[in-house]
């Protein structure tokens, strides 16, 4: 066990866990932020996506010991009231079915739009290919991302 101070959603959090613990479980079991989801644990599904600095990363692969000073943002901290342009676009398109994958989709999409604010359809498909939606909401996800991109550029 070791002590870590993490900056999560703008709040300093002290925790005492094994250094090999993935951030996914630190967030879910220790910090009690359960918006970040477990889907596969092996970097295949994207349900666990969070932001480390500006980058979308898979928290199931990010050990707590490798985070350092970098700020972490989870779905709970993406916006104050669910009004990030990507979240708003998700509401507009009524994207979700079961909803389980959507936090990961939104976190990946929001980081992607930061790096490419005017993407083509093909670029969206490539960027989002690592996020599985078992319910098959892919066409709506794509529409929502295009909507968010347009609203951000407006």
């Amino acid at each position, binding site marked *: 066990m070791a002590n870590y101070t993490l900056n999560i959603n703008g709040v300093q959090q002290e925790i005492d866990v094994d250094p090999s613990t993935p951030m996914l479980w630190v967030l879910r079991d220790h910090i009690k932020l359960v918006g970040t989801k477990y889907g596969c644990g092996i970097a295949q599904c994207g349900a666990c996506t969070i932001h480390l600095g500006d980058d979308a990363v898979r928290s199931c692969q990010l050990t707590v010991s490798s985070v350092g000073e970098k700020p972490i943002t989870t779905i709970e901290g993406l916006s104050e009231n669910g009004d990030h342009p990507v979240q708003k676009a998700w509401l507009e398109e009524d994207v*979700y079915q*079961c909803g389980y*994958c*959507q936090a990961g989709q939104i976190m990946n999409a929001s980081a992607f739009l930061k790096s490419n604010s005017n993407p083509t359809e093909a670029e969206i498909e490539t960027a989002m290919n690592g996020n599985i939606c*078992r319910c*098959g909401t892919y066409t709506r996800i794509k529409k929502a991302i295009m909507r968010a991109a347009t609203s951000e550029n407006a």
Partner: protein
Amino acid sequence: MTLVKTTYNRRSFLKGSTLAGGGMILGFSWLASCKPTPEQIKSMPKEWFDINGFLKIADNGMVTIMSPNPEIGQNVKTAMPMIIAEELDVDWDDVTVEQAALNTDIFTRQLAGGSQSIRQGWESLRMAGATARHMLIAAAAEAWQVPADEITTNEGILSHEASNKSANYGEMASAAGAMAVPEEVALKEVKDFKIIGTDRKNVDGLDIITGKPLFGLDIDEEGMLIAMIVHPPAFGMKYKSMDTESVKAMPGIKDVFPIEVYPEGVEKQWSDGGGIAELVAVVGASTWQCMQAKKALKVQWEEASKPESSSDHDAALTKLLNTTAAAPARQDGDVKKAFKNAAQVIERTYSAPFLAHNTMEPMNFFAHVTSEKAMLKGPVQTPEFLEKTLVSVLDMPLEKIDIMMTRMGGGFGRRLYGHFGVEAAVISKQMQAPIKLVYSREDDMTQGTYRPAYKITYKAGLDKEGNLIAWHVKGAGANDDLVFENRFPAGTVDNFLAEKYTLESNVTTGAWRAPRSNFIAGAEQSFIDEVAEAAGKDPIDFRLELFDRAINNPVGDPEKNDYDPKRYAGVLELVKEKSGWTNGGKARGVSAYYCHNSYVAQVLDLEMEGNTPRVQKVWCAVDCGIVVNPLSAKNQIEGGIIDGIGHATYSEMTFENGKPIQENFDTYQLIRQQQAPKEIESFFVDNGIDPTGLGEPSLPPIIGALANAMYKSTGKRYYNQPFISEKQVLG
């Protein structure tokens, strides 16, 4: 006007009771989910009045509607309350929705499965709304001393024109709860619907996109431990022994022990499905610690029955198709003679592998079992049956067992089988502590309860004019006999023979989104395409000719035929028109199927990218009667289409000596964004018929449309799923 008898269990009426703390609780969830405007805050209710178990009305006119059925992503949590709100006649903006707990005194069929929630709930939900409205009117009539039939309602307002009196529902709610429950109530005419048939967004949308703890896996209770299981590594194996010393000493680990989930003599329900009788439980402080302990744990297993490999399944299914049933499932005319006289005979065999459900949220359940009572909470499609099994397993009376339902991260049939709830209860009982049972993805994928592997042979005979004169279908499946003998094309062909066989397998199987249909439709609709081509006919015209036959001159007893040929033809004609169907040129396929009481026809355009199909567009025509919420109905249709395309193209579960080869998403391929259809457009037949299922019907036929379009592009027919094997895609 439709009058329905009210059929409540009278115990369910808590007359005029103000719910202790109800306003508080609801106020909170309302605040959290809607970000109220200042006007809304001003109108926060002080008191709530329970009208009939289905709904509560607050003193200020706000309404809470209980959604009785489990929510697995099919969006009944929006649609079912919409039906109540329609008959209650309220403004949808004044409605909040809560998930009801299991309560069979009030609600009938609290089960998600078979696309039946809306179909079976339709009348009782309408009745609940209409009854409440009736009682509100009665209360106003008494208060104003005017005849009830002169009182009208409009979006939560009661009015009496002659005396110029009006009140909102909230003002009458308390009195309404004390009114007599009417013997029968009038329901609205379809043409007067204001909420049903309109697009309404998912009531949980904001909670989903902000990461609120909605799911079973998100449960966190005071003093709760995490539990994981280790199940046999192969089908045909059972628990023998283990050495727990070193693992028990690992950080955070509280205990490791074998559990008997279903000891000898317990009364199991169908919903226990492929639940494994004996498992190993690992209990600890956190999920990661349990995962580490699971890895380190050495368990000895022993053979309980002969282990099977995929090649065994394939050979055994083929063997079954080469036998002849003593008693066919259906027989019209004389196929033997007809085939002899046919100008052309076509025979093809189709196959599909086992599939895992792979709900995005793995199986899990919370349980707190003490000697006094059992409290369970989690994602299960069949809470009522879970409760029954628990009575037997825990040896505890029904009244002492409480089950709460959470939102589910996908179902697809998997959560019909609530063995994980039983496992959680047994572990909690042993630990004397609240526990949350968590399956790893690997546990989930290798547990079993799969879509069965299937094989089917079709044989068709055509006369010189290209008319279908004989049809012979023979199907076999693992633990499932596959063929629906009275579905299309039964009733359209003079000489018809259907045979079905079951392969007994120790690989456990269960219902998987649109059971059987999820394979049959693709096989049958590809075969029809091939037969139409041999007949030299357009594939849509060929099918329409068959439906004409079933409409005008059906073969056999038309009552026996399990479909309505007019509605079938209706969706085909609709999709033909909408897609601007032409049979030449494009890589385009068509398909139609009927299941779960709904009719679907699809046209699909694709381009091959290498050997991988990329669907450019799907046109989907659906006849599911009245569409309660078109916005989410379309979402279900799109999901089913993507699901069908994905599994038929990429997915399979295979076995080597009973051991599942695929354990996670690195080897089990699911469809992804780059492989998904670029566009899906859905159309509904508007016929005012009572609504039927939508969670499943769009999936089965799309596999046929896909195979037929792939043929157009590659010149090759696709008989065996997955059409593109994983090796080809992953390289």
